């Protein structure tokens, strides 16, 4: 199975190498009416169909303005990266595509995406229009961005207002100690203080990043070398696992949650707190009224550990990239300009419950709610991008898996000590193979 998959990959590549060379030269050609662009959109709505319904009217608007038609394909998250990799190997792909912003550095390294250098950037309105935090997650530092931010997201602390009132808690916690104390009050009779998505590798890795930052640790050295088992990283990861292991404010069953069961638990009141990004649409789908919950900034460790940073979220989000082999470069850039324009940013982000990536859009009243204010402040002041190194995906997989196993151990009552956490992270670190 796997042999064949790799092999097919190789054949696809071998068969198309001449084509790549042949069409590499005629970029930047046609634009304007009559052109048809292919756009790969990621799944942002409740279903692929929902995405098509949301995007189609906007794309039609673009066609009316420019005469350029857009052929839309919405691709689910499990397939998107594979599709992009296949397009990269074959050189045949869409003109414009969405990428998860954590893939930016890796995809940048393949050279498949059009770099947004000075001229390209000014063609879409200049880089000063974008939020600095969002723009930081578009490629390796010091290189021209491989994409521009389209939708931004940040983590927040979702809390159930009714359960908080019932437990006599006046306001959401600001430190982890307060969160644990509140969590203990909220944990009783089949109800839990906090819920985590313990079996979800990516979620775990995102929290590992934030918690390690608060303890002053980076998972990669400034030279790009992996260091998963530094003292700060161990402390950060342990803090997160301890919500279940030591503080007992998380249902042990959450160790196997990997399909957003934590959202269901939060919506049904089985858990009073949740660390999440853009949960509104899903919570609504689970029947929770927006009045029943509030969103506060993710707490910090207090007192700040030595070297600890003021970071309580990753810069999450979706970037918009232009495929390097596109034959319609000008049309593609016109489309990027349209999608990152103030109007589309307002329309799409308010529909999807995400945050605009351009500053001007925040003037709109739709983005003045207290909840959005929390996310906006986080993105502007306390969110940091995940390490922009080509091995980033290895970090997510390896550390996220190690934490999944730690949660499994914690759930079965195994004591989680510093040495134990360090051992797991060291083992994960040894799996890293340098990217060449």
């Amino acid at each position: 199975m796997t042999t064949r998959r790799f092999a097919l990959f190789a054949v696809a590549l071998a068969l198309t190498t001449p084509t790549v060379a042949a069409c590499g030269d005629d970029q930047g050609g046609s634009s304007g009416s009559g052109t048809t662009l292919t756009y790969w959109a990621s799944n942002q709505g409740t279903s692929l169909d929902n995405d098509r319904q949301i995007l189609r009217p906007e794309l039609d608007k673009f066609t009316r303005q420019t005469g350029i038609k857009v052929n839309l394909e919405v691709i689910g998250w499990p397939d998107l990266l594979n599709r992009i990799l296949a397009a990269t190997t074959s050189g045949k792909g869409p003109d414009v595509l969405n990428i998860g912003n954590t893939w930016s550095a890796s995809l940048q390294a393949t050279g498949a995406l059009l770099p947004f250098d000075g001229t390209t950037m000014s063609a879409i309105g200049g880089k000063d229009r974008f939020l600095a935090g969002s723009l930081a997650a578009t490629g390796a530092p010091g290189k021209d961005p491989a994409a521009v931010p389209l939708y931004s997201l940040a983590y927040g602390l979702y809390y159930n207002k009714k359960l908080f009132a019932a437990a006599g808690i006046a306001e959401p916690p600001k430190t982890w100690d307060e969160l644990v104390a509140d969590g203990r009050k909220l944990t009783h009779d089949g109800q839990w203080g906090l819920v985590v998505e313990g079996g979800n590798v990516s979620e775990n890795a995102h929290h590992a990043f934030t918690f390690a930052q608060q303890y002053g640790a980076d998972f990669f050295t400034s030279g790009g070398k992996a260091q998963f088992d530094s003292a700060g990283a161990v402390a950060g990861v342990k803090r997160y696992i301890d919500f279940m292991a030591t503080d007992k404010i998380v249902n042990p069953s959450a160790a196997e949650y990997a399909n957003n069961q934590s959202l269901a638990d939060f919506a049904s009141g089985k858990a009073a707190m949740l660390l999440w990004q853009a949960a509104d649409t899903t919570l609504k789908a689970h029947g929770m009224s927006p009045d029943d919950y509030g969103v506060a900034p993710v707490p910090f460790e207090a007192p700040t550990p030595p070297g600890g940073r003021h970071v309580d979220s990753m810069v999450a989000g979706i970037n918009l990239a232009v495929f390097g082999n596109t034959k319609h470069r000008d049309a593609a850039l016109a489309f990027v300009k349209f999608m990152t324009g103030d109007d589309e940013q307002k329309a799409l982000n308010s529909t999807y419950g995400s945050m605009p990536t351009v500053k001007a859009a925040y003037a709109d009243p739709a983005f003045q709610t207290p909840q959005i204010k929390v996310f906006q402040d986080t993105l502007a002041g306390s969110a940091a991008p995940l390490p922009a190194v080509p091995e980033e995906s290895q970090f997510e997989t390896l550390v996220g898996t190690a934490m999944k196993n730690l949660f499994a151990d914690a759930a079965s009552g195994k004591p989680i000590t510093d040495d134990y956490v360090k051992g797991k992270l060291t083992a994960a670190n040894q799996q890293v193979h340098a990217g060449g």
Partner: protein
Amino acid sequence: MATLTTPAGGAATTDRSGRSAGRHAGRRRARLDRRRLVPYLMLLPALALELLVHLVPMLYGCWMSLLRLTQFYIRNWSAAPFAGLGNYRASIDVNGAIGGDLLHSFGVTLAFTVLSVGLSWLLGTTAAVLTQHPFRGRGALRTLFLTPYALPVYAAVITWSFLLQRDTGMVNHVLVDQLHLAGDRPFWLIGGNSFGALLAVSVWRSWPFAFLCLTAGLQNVPGELYEAAAVDGAGFGRQLRGITLPMLRPVNQVLVLVLFLWTFNDFNTPYVLFGKAAPRSADLISIHIYQSSFVTWNFGLGSAMSVLLLLFLLVVTGAYLLVTSRRGDA
């Protein structure tokens, strides 16, 4: 054989009755050659496609395994630096982290495969033998047995993953709430129990295939044999050992091999059940290779592991066929 006898016979005719017979034989030989060639010519397109679809990709896979093929080079594959046997060295260095984990995963897969194939075969044989003779409702029962095989993999396995959830799954509901077999709700999808859970799902999925093959095989066992055996006073057990199992030998030979290869390479079941990262006790090799290469963008290393897997399966298949067919001849 034919190629040898025809010219020899032709030569003898020429000796005895002169040139005309020789010319006649020559023409006949050409016609025979052409007739022999036709089937091969007709097979040629299929053979070429077979080479293109199977052999060439395999060779490409082997070539990839010698390269340091990472995300930096997938766009221009030819620029990837030559790694020689570096990827293989990392894969088989059992003291290193990568090789050690691969070995562990290999062991898990082997144990899993042997158990899964054994149980599937046992269940398949039992069910096939019990439904061998007609009775009321046999057709319905057979259909029911085959259902797991007819269901799409994803739908079936995702259902199992719901059943096996700790809090809301039906397995725990029955075991803990109804039967009170365990005090604390066990986990099935993480930790040590996940091996058993995976095994159960795998057997559930593959035993109907064994059942199907063996039922077909049993159609070829002549009824007279059983009648004769019954006259001689052989009971059910004696008939099973003396007639049924020996007559099923050729079917079993292929069935066990196919089940072994499928189970060993199974990717869908663990992937749908556990997601990207399988628990350590159920870390099957196909998932392991996927995770240590595709997900982490290191295609050279993944190819090297896949080639090693291919070699292992080739050796197993070869040895198995050698042993079973030799015993078959004797």
